[in-house]
Every structure is written in structure tokens, then in C-alpha cells.
């Protein structure tokens, strides 16, 4: 039975996935339906309550900026960071892990020790360090998060590769004269995709959280741009006076994370189910 | 006399992407006490699923309908707790790969003794002695040392012997052996078959021997049931099957049994084509596409199981041999 079919029978996962799709659609298409932009200051409505009939659906912040527009911007930025960072960690992690796992022996040993050294470095200091040297920029943020994410990915890929290497079709490929590069590319990597996709889905929430955390500390996105993390940081300061400033981006972030986790779990069940049915 | 096992109109369906598929279709068969019945069929014939249903071991998503009576008592659809009163003690099963049925991190002796402690309230000390005797009965050399070994320390043949010993601990009325020797070497296979033969004479239990190898089954079975496409297609005494098979499928299977004493043939005999898949719709006889004798009627009308030749000989064929 196909993975898609198994996933479709999982009502929770389908529901969560449709919410994610909806959120992404709103984040991308939302600005066209809203007259306000992220920067314009509305001095007539400073820290206004959310109201669906008024000019600002989700209210405004202390400077009178539209919270609806800023939340959508925050979602776009957070999702972009998540996508770019997981793309980096996927490509580097798969390449590194597959080579280490397939080469085995001394190479494997060496490459894995290198990863251990890297993951031993304290992460926050690493990012602060980079920020100090290169200044704050969105791209640096993408890179920094991606550069850390691939470590775990490489470990997972290497473990999977070790077990794939034992399988008979790899021996068959060797016997037919395929080169090592070809075997890794055509025989190992395609068979990694299942577990890797699951892991990637489960790391996206972590990356979003981490970005929010860095932005909260002031190391991430700069004003007037916003990410969910900076919005929450701002909102936390105004919690008593204007609770919606915290609740709106916080609610969006929480919904996104819960849904991504549910989809990731559903995907894992679907893939594991397929593997067990195949044996 | 109450039969040891009575299966009536058993069907097993699996939920699938494109509707349900039928692994077993209205199969009926009876195993009398102390009788050995061989179940023969190719992979996908439903032979294993039939007895997984009997043991209540069908995978999730499978539904069984019909009736299965063990010593007169309906056991199909029983809850696991009720089924466990007979399963593992009076009704036992051994599988092709004994490694998967033994717990890897427990010593053989403990696994054997546990069966007795849980089923017959024996003390651990008594149970251990009984386990030792059981291993000796299935000719495990150095049985005392084996008790303290882990499953991975034994060879495949030894593990299968341990499984047989375990299944015989509570003196079962019926032992179901599903391809017990398929994973083993010929010499070990011969030894295991001999152990089953002797055990059966000693303890008067009934045996169901499931295999794709008619030649192997014929050496032990009193009666042989041939399954194809989830249905019973022929059922008769072992000698009748070997000498007077009436279903063309059985006859074709017999041709495939190797005989080293016959001169070498130009072509190795085999059945052409593929076994039907469980998802295919059933019109007419499932064997018709591979059958050398099939006529028009076989493609349109499904043959029913009927008596042909003798009272104990049944076959489902329009044009029996």
C-alpha cells in the first residue's frame, strides 16, 4: 500500500496538513486583501484592540503598526528560514552521511568524530560569534541554522546508510560493476528518502522555534521586518497592556508547530507501515 | 468422535487501497484426533492465512468469517485472553523462521520453562526439569548446556528443534507446522521431519503440516488438502493424492516433485504461469488460465468441491482426471 494512501487514512494528519496549507496560503496571499503594510504607522490607532470590523483585524502595536500584516510577514519569514535551513541541512547532511556510511571503516570513523566535535560547540555562542563578525543579516541566520541542522541529519543518514549497505541490491549493484558514486547516488540515496523526509518534517518546527528564540534574543530578524519570534518578543513586553500582541503571533506559531508535528508523526507511521508491510 | 479441528466456510479478507482482497475463500477442512493433515499450495494460496486465522494471529486489518471449532468449541473471534487458554498449550504452531518466535534476550531454558509455569502452574524447578526432558525428546545434543544458551547461539536446525520442544511441552492436541523446514538444509530437514513423525506416534497428537512441497508433505501426512487461490481444490488420503489425483492442479504439482531415481528429464517440470493474486476477481475456476484441460465452462462457472472417486476424496473440478 502506498505511503500516500496510509497518510490519507490518518484523519488527524490530513486535518493538520490542511491547516498548514491554509496558513501558508494566507501568509502568501494575505497582503493583497489587507490595505495596511508592515511599516506604516497609524497614529490614530496605537495599540488598538483587534476588531474584524475596524481597520486593523488583529489590532495594532505600540507604534500603530498593523498586527495582521506583521503576523503574516512573520509567518513568511519564519517559514522561509525553516525551508532554507532544512534544505541546507538536508543536502549537506545526506551527502555527508551517505558518504560516511557507505565508505565505512576509517573514513566513517573520521567523519563522525568531526561531527561530534562540531556538535560539541555551544550553538548560541556560535551564532553570536558569526553575528559579531559579519553583522546581522537574514542570510546569515539561514546559514547559521542550516549549518547546525545538518549534524543530526548526517548522523541519521549515516545510520540508515549502514543498514542499506547490508542489503542485497547493493551487492547486486557492486557485482554489475557500478562505481561507488553511482551506488551512493542511485541506490543508497533514493532508499534514504523515507526516514529523511520524516526527520525533516520533524525538524522544521525545531528550526522555527530556534529562529524565534534567536530573534527573541535580538540576534535574528531586524526591524521593521518581523518574524514570529520578534513579534512574540515584542508582545511579551506588552503582555499586560496589549495581550493580543503576544496572543496572535504566539497562537499562530503554536498552531503551526502542533500541525507540523502531527504531519511528521503521521508521515513516519505511514512510511514505517509501508516498510513493515513490505517485509 | 469430535474432530480435533473443524474449519467451516472460513474466509479471510484484508482491507486494501482498492477494496477488500480475499486471502482465503470459504475453505472447509477437518482434522481428526491424532491425524496428520498436509496442506499444500503455492505462495498466495491462502494456506498460511487459514491457520493464522485458526490461531487468532491474523494481522490488523484482516477479517475472518466462518467457523473454526477446536475440539468442538468455537474459537474464531474469541478474545485473546480466552483464546490463550488453548493457544500455546493444547493448540500450538511452529513457523518457518524459528528465530522470530524465540525471544532473543532470554535463555532457552527460561523460555521453555515459562510456557509450563504459565500454562500448568508448575514450579520453576519442575518446569526446568520438564524443559530438559523436552529437549532430549527432540534429540537436542547436550540438552543441559542448551538450556543456558541464547537463541542466537544455536543453528537454524537446533532452533527449530527448540520450537518443536516448546510446542510439545503442554502435550497439545494439535500442532500446526507452517513450512517448518523451508529455511533448513536437506539433511536437517530430514531430521526434523523424522522428529515430527516420532513425536506424533508417541503423543497421539494431530499435526497440520503446511508446505509448498508436496513431496515433503507426502512423507508424513495421512491426508492431503490442496489449496489454490484461497480455496480447497482437492482433499483425499495421501496415497490417493499420490496415485489417483483427480484435480489437474494436484497432478501438475505432483509432476514437479523431484525424484532422483528417475532419469534426468530434458526440461525440469514446472507449472507455467503465475499463481492468482488475492485481489483478482474470481470468475470460473481460478486454475483455468494455467490448466492444460480447461474448457469453456471452467472460465465461466466456478467448480464446487464434490466427492469424486470415493467418500474421502473431494475435488473442485469440472473435468476431473
Amino acid at each position, binding site marked *: 500500500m502506498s505511503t500516500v494512501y496510509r497518510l490519507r487514512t490518518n484523519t488527524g494528519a490530513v486535518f493538520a496538513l490542511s491547516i498548514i496549507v491554509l496558513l501558508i496560503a494566507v501568509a502568501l496571499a494575505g497582503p493583497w486583501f489587507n490595505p495596511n503594510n508592515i511599516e506604516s504607522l497609524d497614529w490614530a490607532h496605537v495599540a488598538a484592540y483587534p476588531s474584524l470590523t475596524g481597520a486593523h483585524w488583529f489590532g495594532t502595536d505600540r507604534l500603530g503598526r498593523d498586527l495582521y500584516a506583521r503576523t503574516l510577514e512573520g509567518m513568511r519569514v519564519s517559514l522561509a528560514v525553516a525551508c532554507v535551513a532544512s534544505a541546507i541541512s538536508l543536502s549537506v547532511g545526506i551527502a555527508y552521511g551517505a558518504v560516511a556510511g557507505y565508505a565505512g571503516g576509517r573514513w566513517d570513523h573520521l567523519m563522525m568524530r568531526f561531527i561530534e566535535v562540531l556538535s560539541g560547540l555551544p550553538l548560541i555562542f556560535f551564532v553570536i560569534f558569526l553575528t559579531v563578525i559579519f553583522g546581522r543579516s537574514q542570510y546569515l541566520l539561514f546559514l547559521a541554522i542550516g549549518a547546525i541542522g545538518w549534524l543530526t541529519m548526517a548522523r541519521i543518514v549515516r545510520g540508515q546508510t549502514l543498514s542499506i549497505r547490508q*542489503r*542485497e*541490491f547493493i*551487492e*547486486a*549493484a557492486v*557485482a*554489475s*560493476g*557500478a*562505481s561507488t558514486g*553511482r551506488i551512493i547516488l*542511485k*541506490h543508497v540515496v*533514493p*532508499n534514504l*528518502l523515507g526516514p529523511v523526509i520524516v526527520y525533516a518534517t520533524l525538524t522544521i518546527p525545531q528550526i522555527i522555534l530556534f529562529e524565534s528564540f534567536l530573534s527573541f534574543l535580538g540576534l535574528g530578524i531586524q526591524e521593521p521586518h518581523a518574524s514570529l519570534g520578534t513579534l512574540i518578543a515584542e508582545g511579551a513586553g506588552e503582555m499586560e497592556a496589549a495581550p493580543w500582541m503576544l496572543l496572535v503571533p504566539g497562537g499562530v506559531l503554536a498552531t503551526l508547530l502542533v500541525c507540523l508535528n502531527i504531519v511528521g508523526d503521521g508521515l513516519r507511521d505511514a512510511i514505517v507501515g509501508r516498510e513493515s508491510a*513490505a517485509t | 468422535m469430535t474432530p480435533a479441528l473443524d474449519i467451516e466456510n472460513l474466509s479471510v479478507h484484508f482491507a486494501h487501497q482498492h477494496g477488500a482482497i480475499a486471502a482465503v475463500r470459504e475453505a472447509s477442512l477437518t482434522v481428526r484426533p491424532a491425524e496428520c493433515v498436509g496442506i499444500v499450495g*503455492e*505462495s*498466495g494460496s491462502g494456506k498460511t492465512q487459514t491457520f493464522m486465522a485458526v490461531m487468532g494471529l491474523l494481522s490488523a486489518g484482516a477479517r475472518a468469517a466462518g467457523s473454526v471449532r477446536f475440539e468442538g468449541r468455537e474459537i474464531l473471534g474469541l478474545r485473546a485472553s480466552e483464546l490463550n487458554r488453548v493457544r500455546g498449550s493444547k493448540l500450538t504452531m511452529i513457523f518457518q523462521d524459528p528465530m522470530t518466535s524465540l525471544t532473543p534476550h532470554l535463555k532457552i531454558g527460561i523460555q521453555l520453562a515459562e510456557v509450563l509455569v504459565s500454562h500448568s502452574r508448575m514450579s520453576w524447578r519442575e518446569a526446568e526439569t520438564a524443559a530438559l526432558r523436552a529437549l532430549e525428546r527432540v534429540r537436542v*545434543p*547436550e540438552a543441559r548446556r542448551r538450556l543456558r544458551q541464547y537463541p542466537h547461539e*544455536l*543453528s*537454524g*536446525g*537446533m532452533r527449530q528443534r527448540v520450537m518443536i520442544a516448546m510446542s510439545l511441552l503442554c502435550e497439545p492436541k494439535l500442532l500446526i507446522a507452517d513450512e517448518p523446514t523451508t529455511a*533448513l*538444509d*536437506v*539433511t*536437517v*530437514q*530430514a*531430521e526434523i521431519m*523424522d522428529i515430527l513423525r516420532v513425536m506424533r506416534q508417541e503423543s497421539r497428537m494431530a499435526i497440520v503440516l503446511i508446505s509448498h*512441497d*508436496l*513431496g*515433503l508433505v*507426502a*512423507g508424513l501426512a495421512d491426508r492431503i488438502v490442496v489449496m489454490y487461490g484461497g480455496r480447497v481444490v482437492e482433499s483425499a488420503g495421501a496415497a490417493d493424492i*499420490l496415485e489417483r489425483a483427480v484435480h489437474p492442479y494436484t497432478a*501438475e*504439482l505432483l509432476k*514437479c*516433485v*523431484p*525424484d*532422483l531415481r528417475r532419469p*534426468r*528429464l530434458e*526440461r*525440469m517440470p*514446472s*507449472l*507455467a504461469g*503465475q*499463481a492468482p493474486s488475492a485481489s483478482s476477481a474470481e470468475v470460473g475456476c481460478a486454475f483455468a488460465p494455467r490448466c492444460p484441460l480447461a474448457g469453456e465452462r471452467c472460465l465461466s462457472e466456478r467448480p464446487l468441491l464434490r466427492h469424486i472417486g470415493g467418500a474421502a476424496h473431494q475435488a473442485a473440478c469440472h473435468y476431473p482426471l
Partner: protein
Amino acid sequence: MNPLLSVKNLVVHFGAFPAVQDVTFDLRQGETVGLVGESGSGKSTLARAILRLIPATSGSIFVGGDDLLSCRSAELRRRRRDLQMVFQDPLASLNPRMSVGTALAEPLKIHEPSLSAPLRAARVAEMLERVGLSPGMAGRFPHEFSGGQCQRIGIARAMILRPKLLVCDEPVSSLDVSIQGQIVNLLADLQKELGTAMLFISHNLAVIRHLSHRVLVIYRGKLVETADCDELFAAPAHPYTQALLAAVPDPTRVPAATPIAAVDETPAAAAGTGGCAFAGHCAYAQDQCRQIVPPLDEVGLRHAATCHRWREVVYSWRHEARNSGSR
């Protein structure tokens, strides 16, 4: 004529465990050599060592005159086009994420990179048809096929380059008895057509007898008997070969007491190096069998066995065969 494959004194060790000990044999073009032995006897190890899928400890493997063991990796990869293999588990030996057409095209892409895509597709289609599958199946994936069909695909992949040597490692033992013949006949036909030499490994004597011109019997990593096929089945000169023959299930009679006593079958237990490795299970064993390793003795024409008492062994088999024949 020079043999196509010539294995000389091949030894393969796994750590300290000798999996293959001092094996020597030849294989001519168009010839099939059957290799019989039980699990753990080292027959699969021997096959893999010959194809250099695992490293050999010592010895030499001559293919067409050069020693394969001294080839460097690029040279080895190029020579693999002549040395192909069919595996035991047909489904596991196919990449689950690769369509059948792609899997068959792969050897062509590797060894005949100049072939254009349409020509390659044509070769794949032709090969699929040759092994009894429809060319329209090229787009399907391995799990959509039955075991027998998967093995046909495995054979097609091995034969698409028209190799000089095909090594088959238990290609039918995971298939139903009723299907085994299809695969065996297909291999026999392809061999006749293409003149491929074949090393056919199996524990199934019926299959071995059907395909082989010569048979090697291997026990615990050592060659114990080698003979032409008919000769081996008519007059086995090693007690182990006899035990194998006697163990084949025969539907027409209840087998006599088992030929091999229940001793520990694990190969690791065969640590004792003094004498014949089979002595512990052997009905003919005498003191000398436990003390002196038997040499490979010439028993008849192209027939050799490692047994001190092969004369008695052959005699008693002939005697028994005559008796059971007259009954």
C-alpha cells in the same frame, strides 16, 4: 581448450574462521558446475570471493588467463561485465525504488555508455521478453511482482550484458517447488543460447542434477567430492554426498532413519582440525579418519573425493541401490 575460470587454492577467512579452505576447480565455456553444500558450508562465500565481492585471503582466480585477485578497482569494475551474478532473494536483490526498466538499463549504462537511449530501451525490452515478461512491465517496481517474476528480472539484469560467467547463488531456493522448474529451464535455455559458463550454487540436489555438467560438493569450506553429474548421483564416493542424497524427501516411501546423527550443526563447533571434518557424523569413520586429514583421491574418471574409505563407501551405495531397485 583453456578453462574460462580457474580457481586455484582459494582460501577465505572471516577473522580466524576459515570459511573456504583450499578450493581448486576449473570451469569451461558453456559448462555448468553445480556447487552443493549446506548453509554455513562456505558455498556462498566461495561464490562471492570468486566475484571479488568479498576479499579472498589467498589463492588465485584466473579468468581468461589473468588473475582477478590482482586487478585494481577500475580494472575490476570493467571486467565485471563478463562476470555476473543472480542472487538468492529475488526481491531483496532489486532496488525497491528503481523501476524494472531502469534496473535492467543500469548495466548497459555502466558498460556500454555510448549506447543511445532508444537502443538501450530496445535492449531492455528484448531482454524482458526473453525472460518471459512483457516489455510493458518496464515501468513497474519490484514489489509489484511475484517471487518468480522478480527472479526473472534478476536473471535479465545479469544476462543483458551477455557475460561469460554467470554465478547463481541459490536462485530458486526461495521459490515454490512448482515455480523452480520455470527458472531452472530459463537459465538452461539462456546458457545454451549464449554459451555462458555457469557456477550454480544450491542445496537442492534435484536442481543441481538438472543443470550441472559437473558437481562440486563442499563441506565446512572444503571440497569433499567432485565428479561429472551423472557419476556423482550414481556412485557418490563421499559419505557426506550420500547423506545429502539420502535426505531428499521421497513421497513414495517413508525415509529410513536419518543419515546424519544429531550433532551440533554450527560450523564454529567444527574446530577440531585433526582428521576428516565429517568424521563425527560419519557411519564409516575409523581411527585414521579422526587423525589424518584425507587427501583428494582419484576415485574414477574425472571423479575425486576426500575420503580414506571411499572404496567401501561406493561399494555399499551400489549394493543398496541394487537391493532397493530389485524390490
